[in-house]
Each structure stands twice: as C-alpha cells, then as structure tokens.
C-alpha cells in the first residue's frame, strides 16, 4: 500500500541555527531534490525549502525504510547526527501529511499567518519536482489540490485580507483615501528603512513621482536617485506640500517640523485636496492636531502598529474558517486516494475479462467457418457485451467501497472470487 509521508521542520520546531543548515539555495535545492528521488523506496518526492521551513514530501510503499533514509539524508546534509536532529523534525503520515501540506500552502502554518509568499515557494518546489520527473499521479494531484485550496481560502476567508506590515498598512490607507494612487505625488522627508520601504510600495502602486528632502541636501540627492525622484531643499517643504498628496516623514528632529497652522494654510492653497501624512518618526514630526483639519489624515507609527495588531487578530479569527475548509479538502483527497487503491484490481478484472472473451470468440469462430463477416462481427459483439455486463456490477461495487475502511476486505474477496492473484503469478512465470 502506498503511503504519503511528510518529514520536515519549521520555525516552531527548530531554531534558525538548525534551519539554516538545511536551507537550500536554488541550485542546491535542485540537487537535493534529485538526490532524494534517487533514494531507494521513494516513489515520488517534492522538496520545499524556505527560510522558515524545510519539507520533504514523498510517497512510498515501504514507509519505515524510506523514513529512515530521509532522516539519514537530512543528517548528512546538515551535519547533525540523526538522533540529535530528530527532536527538531516532525513526521506526518497519510491524512496528516495531506493536511500539513494543505495548511502550509494556504499559509496557515506560516510565521505571519496568511503571508502570500509561501504559495509561490510551494509552486517553485513543485516545478522542480516536475522538471526532475519526481512527481507523479499522487503528488501531482496533491499539489494541484493544494494550489486551488490556497486560492479558495484566500478568497473565501479574510486570512490574507488586511495588511500586517507597517508599510502595507500605510499603502492600504492611502488607497482608501485617494482611491487609485496613479498620478499621486509623494514627499519623503528624512530617510530610514521603513520610510523607504513605504515609498517603494507606493511607487509599486503607481504613485507618480517622489520628492526627497533631507537636512543634508547631498543625502537627499542620493536617495532621490535611488527612487528616480527629485531632491528638494529642506526649506522648500511648505511649498512642496501644495503639490504632493502623501508625505512620509522620518527625521530625527526633536521638534515637529510640520505644524497645525502651516497645514491649515496649505489646505486653502490645495483647495482641500486630501493630504495624507505617514509619520514614522519618534518623536513625531507632524503635530498630532494636524489630523483634526478637514481632508487631512495623519498616521503616526503607533497608529499604524495598532492597525496591524488588529489585523493580525482578525486573521487569526479567519484562520478558524480556513481550517474547516482544509478539513473538507483532506477528506475529499483521502477519498480519491482510496479509489486509487481499487484501480489496479479493476484493471486486472477488465484484462481478465478481455482475455476470456477473446479466447472464446476465437474458439467459436474457428468451428463456424461459413459465417459472413457481418455475422462474425455479431458473435464478437455479443461475447464482448456479455463479459462486460457481467463485470459491471462488481466494478461499481468496488468503486463504492473505495472510500470505506472495509475496502481492503472487499478487494481481497474480489481478487479471490475472480482468482486474480494466482493468475498474476502464473503469467509472471
């Protein structure tokens, strides 16, 4: 009987020092995938490696030996003795392996719940397996189910619904204020990792131009080059505020650089076109009262953090729904696996039936020499139909039992009734 097994480790079971020993680069991954497929007793295999997890998914008929070989392989690659490695590993069989893969693909097992990258990584892993021809009937289907399940969970639950990083939350807010960001101007005051990331996301969302300013002008010029924007001088801020729509500030200034009165003045000049301040600086660069002005929106770092905390707990609530969908799909897939078990028996039955009727047709026709071709055809068709119709019910019966626990019993009875195993042996001889 074929088993599906998953051996792996993730951010919860293994510290980064251990994970990085087994984290494969692109070419290493290809080689590892081929090495694993070459291991004896492994029928199909897929290797997934990201910075948070390593998963080796395979099918085998000799579960014990295959598991042992995989652990030996992982031990060899990581340089950790098998017994020291085992506490970091989890091993899932059959339904549990299916469920685990589904959960990984749907980002239910990710460090940041619902993060979108993992599905791409699973797809990459599958592509390598396809290239190496190490994935076949079972894993092909399992992977395709994983992809469509992930998509379904993404659309039917809010697990990936709202932003969980500061920069994404800021871009999402900008979209709720301005609608499309096409043609919007961004002013970046000061520099810093988070501010630059937010600026990059805004550019990716089609914001048109970026202006950069800094107390030291040379620094502004450098940064402007990086964003293909324009550097403006620090004392130009007020006049630039008339033209841009989104301001990201992160200077180390101890005093606010943007004041209530200043923005009120500016809004008249802007004819109340909305203005959005993303103030990442601590202490804040924008006076908090600015938020009270109509059509002006100010978000500081704590506001943004508050939003992503809320969003994370929303995702956790949505994950419950997602788990239910996973349960459903695990059952469906297991049922399909069950039908796979009865397929060989059904095929053998059909082969046997074909052998019998062809033999009988030959015998009959050799003794009836005067038949016209049309009549010969009639005899053939009749023999074929009788044989097929006799088999129809047993085959349907086996298919019906394929999802039941009693499947093996009925398979056994069917094989004995039709004497399939003896014949197999005879023909092999």
């Amino acid at each position, binding site marked *: 009987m074929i088993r599906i097994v998953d051996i792996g480790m993730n951010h919860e079971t293994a510290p980064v020092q251990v994970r990085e020993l087994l984290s494969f680069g692109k070419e290493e991954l290809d080689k590892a995938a081929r090495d694993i497929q070459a291991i004896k007793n492994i029928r199909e295999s897929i290797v997934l490696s990201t910075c948070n997890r390593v998963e080796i998914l395979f099918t085998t008929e000799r579960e014990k030996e295959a598991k042992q070989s995989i652990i030996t392989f992982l031990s060899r690659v990581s340089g950790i003795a098998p017994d020291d490695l085992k506490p970091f590993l989890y091993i899932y069989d059959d339904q549990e392996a299916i469920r685990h893969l589904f959960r990984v693909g749907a980002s239910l097992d990710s460090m940041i719940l619902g993060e979108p990258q993992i599905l791409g990584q699973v797809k990459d892993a599958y592509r390598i397996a396809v290239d190496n021809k190490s994935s076949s009937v079972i894993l092909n289907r399992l992977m395709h189910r994983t992809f469509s399940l992930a998509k379904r969970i993404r659309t039917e639950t809010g697990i990936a619904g709202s932003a969980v990083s500061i920069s994404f939350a800021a871009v999402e807010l900008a979209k709720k204020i*301005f609608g499309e960001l096409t043609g919007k101007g961004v002013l970046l005051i000061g520099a810093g990792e988070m501010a630059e990331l937010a600026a990059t996301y805004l550019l990716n969302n089609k914001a048109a131009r970026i202006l950069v300013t800094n107390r030291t002008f040379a620094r502004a010029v450098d940064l402007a080059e990086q964003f293909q924007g324009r550097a403006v001088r620090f004392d130009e801020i007020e006049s630039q505020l008339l033209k841009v729509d989104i301001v990201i500030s992160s200077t180390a200034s101890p005093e606010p650089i943007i004041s209530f009165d200043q923005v009120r003045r500016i809004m008249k000049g802007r004819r109340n076109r909305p203005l959005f301040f993303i103030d990442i600086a601590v202490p804040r660069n924008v006076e908090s009262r600015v938020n009270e002005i109509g*059509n002006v929106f100010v978000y500081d770092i704590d506001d943004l953090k508050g939003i992503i905390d809320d969003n994370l707990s929303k995702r956790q609530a949505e994950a419950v729904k997602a788990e239910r969908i996973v349960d459903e799909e695990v059952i469906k897939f297991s049922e399909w696996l069950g039908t796979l078990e009865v397929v060989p028996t059904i095929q053998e039955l059909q082969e046997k039936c074909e052998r019998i009727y062809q033999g009988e047709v030959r015998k009959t026709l050799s003794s009836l020499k005067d038949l016209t071709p049309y009549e010969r055809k009639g005899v053939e068709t009749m023999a074929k139909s009788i044989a097929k119709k006799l088999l129809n019910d047993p085959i349907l019966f086996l298919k019906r039992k394929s999802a039941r626990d009693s499947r093996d019993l009925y398979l056994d009875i069917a094989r004995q009734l039709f004497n399939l195993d003896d014949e197999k042996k005879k023909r092999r001889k």
Partner: protein
Amino acid sequence: MDIVFFRLTLSLYFVATAGFLYFIIRRRKKVGLWSHRILLLGFALHTMFLLLGYYRLGAVPALSFKSSLAFFSWAIVAAYIIFQAKFRIMVLGSFVIPLSVVLMILSSTIPITPVTVRPAFKGIWLPLHATTSLLGDGIFVIACIAGIMYLIQERQIKTKRLGAFYSRLPSLNILDSINYHAISYGFLLLTIGMITGSIVAQGAHGTYWRWDPKEVWSLLTWLCYAVLLHQRVAIGWRGRRSALMAIGCFFILIFTFLGVNLLMEGYHSFESLEGNPLP
C-alpha cells in the same frame, strides 16, 4: 395587469435587497453581481408598470401619493443604475436599494383612489416635469447616501479605528466624486423640473408662480443645492463638509416631497391633484 407588474417588481427588488445585504455582510462578489442583474430585471418591469399606468391614465402616473411613491422608487433605482454604471461601486446598492423597497411597500399599503385627470395634465409638460423632478430627487438620494458612506469611512480613518466598514466601503475620493457628480446632475434635473413645473402651472392655473407651499419649499431645496454646488465649485469645498451639506439638503428635499404634500394645503397637494376640490 398593472398589479402583476407591480408585485413582480416588488418581489424582484426584495430579492435584490436580500442579495445586496448578503453581499455587503459576507462579501461574495457573485452575490452582488446577481443582485444587480435581478435588480435590472425588476427595473425593466417597473418601467413597464409605469408605462402601462401612463397609457391607462392618459397622464403621468404620479398624481396620487400612492403612485408618486412608486415613481420615486423607480427614480432612485434609475439613479443607482446610472451611478453604478459609471463608478462600479456595488456596495452603493446595499444602501440604496433597501430604500426603494421601503417606498414600494409604502406605496402598496395605500389604497387606490380614483383619479380624475384634468385636461391640463395631458400633454408633454407634466410628464417632463414629473420625470425630471423625480429623477433629480433620485439622484439626490445617491448624493445623500454617498455622503453618509463618506462620513462613515472618514470617521473610521480619522479616529484610526478601522472597523467592518473600512474594507467594505470604497475610497473617500470615489465617494466624494459620486457626491459631486450627483449634486451637479441632480441640480440640473431639479432646475429643469422647476421650469417645466411652472409651465404646467401656467397651463392649469394661468400663472407660472403662485407662492404655493410646494413651490416655496422646492425653491428652498433648489437654493440649498445651489449653495452646495457653488461652495464645491468656487470655494473648493470637498469631503466632510460637502457630505454633511448633501445630507442636510436632502432633508429639506424629503420635506418638500412628503411633508408639503401631506401636511400643508395647496394646489400641489395630492387631494387637489386627484381632482378633489380644496376644502
């Protein structure tokens, strides 16, 4: 026959409302799409119902309170369909369509009264007056509802508490843009409605303007929207203020539509429109 069309329309609007509410709660895009299609079908039947009424009566079917409610409901749906086609904001339906269902139900609870059509009500001007005025009112409903949606969304963003509506409602920019377009087109139609109305009055009473309560309140409504439009175009109002004022003007409009007709006496009240003499 008329009643069949009316009931079919009402049931389709009912189904569409249920669909639109489900859509905004569970966010199933397909449900929203189907609700919209069902609504379109209902709207077609509603139009048939009104045309049939026009054919039977020989005058625009808005002479009684009962029929003008059904006509207003039609105008709201028409305005929604136009704005949905332009802005593609399905959630608008979740807010607007329940309203037209309520109007339809109200209309169906009022008993039918026989209407005598005066000769002055035949001809082109009354249908023009009723259609442009009511369509203008329907568009102002959209302006008001976009204003309410704007206030909800703006409040969430300003107070930094992003609740259930944050992801469901469109961006402030789109809501403000709907507000602006609705006020512009609504104002245009209302203006045409008042001009054609005075022509009807001239035909019926021999004078264009009589300072009748309906006329006075219509003028007030018109002025309110005129001020709002002026503030938007000339002063650069937008966002919250404009939304608030669109809601405020709408209250005056509703009073003009309902209050004046039901509470005050004048030649435009339905008693006199229906042909009964004033007490």
